[in-house]
């Protein structure tokens, strides 16, 4: 009897969260999946069960090109944010000795987040433009004679904005796991004659894996779901999956947008599943 009570209590305790997830996570996704099989005319959508949307999606070479571009953005941004994020976190965790200083410097990292995402992105545009500060400075230094055209409205600009926007998402979890590394392990490595590099590769890196993985998941999902950064920084000249979806929505093609969203969701889930094969986050947290 008592056991049964505990059983009920457990269910009760879990139910608020389960309900919230059901209402705000599962239900919308189910809805999107359902709508992705519907049909659309120019100004309305009608319930149906047809594979037209998917057929068009998988039948168009544009889809593959755009998914490839999205993965490309995600991979390059990931590599750069990881390199920068790891370095910053390493500096904060192991080079800065006092805790007060660590916290102060960490807060400095978050300062850009006091303004909106969009503003941080758009402020790059006048900076990188043909007659922008970057080009003017380079010309006045005599480094270049003609303004560099590829600074703005290019893949370079898109990735620059992504890295700028999302590096902190890498710094925070990596810094967090590094702070939890037992310092005596580093001392032991040193006592056993390991060089700085060997300590880094064989001790610190394996121990920060969960942090890296969490940061990776943040960055990859953010980049793959983005559409506004790509639109502004490429001057609408490049496309990623997010832009395909937003274009469809703008043109009232909700079912086709839903189908693209479903495929994108599956892609992201597969990517994350692969990542989780490398590190068991739950075990190491």
């Amino acid at each position, binding site marked *: 009897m008592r056991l049964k009570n505990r059983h009920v209590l457990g269910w009760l305790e879990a139910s608020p969260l389960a309900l919230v997830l059901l209402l705000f996570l599962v239900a919308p996704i189910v809805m999107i999946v359902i709508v992705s099989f519907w049909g659309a005319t*120019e*100004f*309305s959508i009608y319930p149906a069960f047809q594979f037209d949307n998917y057929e068009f999606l998988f039948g168009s070479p544009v889809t593959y090109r755009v998914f490839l571009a999205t993965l490309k953005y995600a991979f390059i941004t990931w590599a750069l944010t990881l390199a920068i994020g790891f370095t910053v976190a390493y500096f904060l965790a192991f080079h800065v000795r006092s805790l007060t200083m660590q916290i102060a410097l960490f807060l400095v990292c978050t300062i850009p987040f006091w303004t909106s995402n969009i503003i941080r992105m758009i402020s790059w545009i006048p900076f990188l433009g043909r007659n922008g500060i970057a080009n003017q400075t380079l010309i006045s230094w005599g480094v270049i004679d003609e303004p560099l055209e590829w600074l703005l*409205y290019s893949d370079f600009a898109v990735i620059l904005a992504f890295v700028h926007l999302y590096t902190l998402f890498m710094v925070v979890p990596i810094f967090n796991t590094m702070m939890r590394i037992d310092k005596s392990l580093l001392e032991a490595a040193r006592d056993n004659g390991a060089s700085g590099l060997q300590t880094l590769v064989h001790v610190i890196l394996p121990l920060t894996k969960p942090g890296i993985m969490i940061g990776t998941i943040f960055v990859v999902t953010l980049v793959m779901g983005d559409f506004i950064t790509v639109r502004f920084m490429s001057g*609408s*000249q*490049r496309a990623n999956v997010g832009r395909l979806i937003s*274009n469809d*929505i703008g043109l*009232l093609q909700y079912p086709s947008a839903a189908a693209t969203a479903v495929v994108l969701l599956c892609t992201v889930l597969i990517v994350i599943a692969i990542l989780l094969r490398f590190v068991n986050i739950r075990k190491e947290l």
Partner: protein
Amino acid sequence: MAILAKPKVGYSRRSLLKAGGAAIAASTLPAPMLWAQDTKDIVLRQFGTGVSNLNDVANKVKEDLGFTLEMTALDSDSVTQRAATQPDSFDIADIEYWICKKVWPTGNLQAMDVSRIANYDKIVGIFKDGKLTPDSEIAQGTAPHTVGFIPEPGATTFADEQTNWMTLIPTIYNADTLGIRPDLIGRPIESWAELLNPEFQGKASILDISSIGIMDMAMVCEAMGEIQYGDKGNMTREEIDATMAIFTEAKQNGQFRAFWKTFDESVNLMASGEVVIQSMWSPAITAVKSRGIPCVYQPLKEGYRSWGGGIGLSQSLSGMELDAAYEYINWYLSGWVGGYVMRQGYYSAVPETSKEFMSENEWGYWFEGKEATDVITSPTGDELAQAGEVRDGGSFEERMGSVACWNAVMDENQYMVRKWNEFIAA
């Protein structure tokens, strides 16, 4: 609707109207209503593209008519989306004629009784029989008069000729062309074909709104002599493919610096010198000029791509709100707004009444294409032209008389949209 206000003293036309409205309301509502609803409690929700959603208009409506007009400005795609999917979110839709063609069949808008429109007879011919003058030719595309009338209330198809039921009351319209930076180009530009001239590689732009962008593309391809269209406003799949192929090639060769979707983006691209030739809208030119940067709305020999906007009434509008909406429409056509938009560089649907609200100099400059005799300022006070200058493109008849096509929705619209997506991703 149920707010009761203090009774007003005196009998104006409006208070009589109001009492009439209250009587109807009293007979339909279960609760006894003793007092008239004050006009000032009426709120009409209008949404539309930025061009005509002007706060000054809302303020003037409050002043002249007493009721409140709430404005929401969106881009063309969002406007279409909202008109088609959220009929209860607005009372008045300020949309373009090509959007009307898309939205009307949803039944979200109600036709207007022409006999209640005081200045109907004075509306320019373009919106009635399609002809500016009796012998002018009707341009390609979704010409406003083709979607301006329906045979009877409730119909979802359009009438071929003028009827007593109008879909939209025309508000403003204009003839669009390419904007250029004369100081950075340094030679005369005369044809749409210049947009793809390799001379401007990396310095051209086109707008990323498929239904309008495709028209600009068509103007360019036709000017280059590459494609002969049956009807630019209603292309066949082959014509769409051929057009996109030309532009995709240009894009891959780096012809375009960027594409723009909003008014501000087009202004910034031009003002910063990123782009020297691009599709543009008239007030964007004004905005660039008001920063002291030379910018010309270049008339081209192939003619203009034209557009027209109008206001439509939501299907759910009835009773006093409907009366207020008619009052608003009649006020709209009575001249003040017309004068305002004409001084921005657009045209009013009833130029006659707008004339009274403009100075002789302004009327001469904006409408008749004459030399300005004094400084021309925008409604917000920015200087746009000095004495002696002439409007780009000349008079109303010259500009609206050389329209080559109207913004349009094609039968192959969905196909075109997909191709447009491919073009952006290419």
